[in-house]
């Protein structure tokens, strides 16, 4: 029997790793993966809650999150490729055209 708190802690830890990766890493693709990690941590907690509450809603939301994440991945990668075609770098520090 796995207690609910384990899932919640796992999800919180994964979310924090994702946030850390987003803020600390300098490669766009790694940052992108960090965001996916955050979304999946949310999925874990939603499924865990859904099981323990015996309510389907959480799992329905997980379905939508997965579908939206796929669309998001497609759009995000397309944007990165469009960027890469003009300036061949995916290092965040070199993305500095706009500032003020």
């Amino acid at each position, binding site marked *: 029997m*796995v207690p609910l708190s384990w899932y919640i802690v796992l999800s919180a830890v994964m979310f924090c790793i994702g946030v850390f990766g987003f803020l600390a890493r300098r490669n766009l693709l790694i940052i992108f993966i960090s965001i996916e990690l955050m979304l999946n941590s949310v999925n874990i907690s939603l499924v865990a809650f859904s*099981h323990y509450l*015996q309510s389907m809603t959480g*799992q329905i939301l997980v379905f939508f999150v997965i*579908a939206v994440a*796929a669309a998001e991945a*497609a759009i995000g990668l*397309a944007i990165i*490729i469009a960027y890469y075609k003009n300036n061949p770098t995916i290092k965040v520090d070199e993305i500095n055209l706009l500032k003020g």
Partner: protein
Amino acid sequence: MHVVFVYKTTTMPGTYIPSDYLSVAVIIIFAALIGLGAIAAGLLVRPRRPYARKLMPYESGNPPVGEPRYRFSVKFYIVAMLFVVFDVEAVFLYPWAVAYDKLGIFGFVEMMLFIFILLIGYIYVWKKGAFNWE
């Protein structure tokens, strides 16, 4: 007024026992044993006479052309991306199919709308030439 989706499982929280997964574990162990056994049997039986040509990476019997690590064309990415999007959206068909008799005509109309929207996306992608390899 709001919907609560009721969800019933045979195991209630608190009575959940991992033994449900025993059969899965047995299958995993057997699969691993069969695979390892086959490799082990090959190692024991076959003669070992290596030479340079034999040690080359296997590429359908042809000599390898270039390094294994090189950049892939962005065309692969477009195909993969389209696959991911259409594939993941198809996931919504499963719950609908399972609950088809309960949802009735409403579910049918909704799902046809959904597929219709996907279809228009498909036509768009097609006409834009994303499937052309050039």
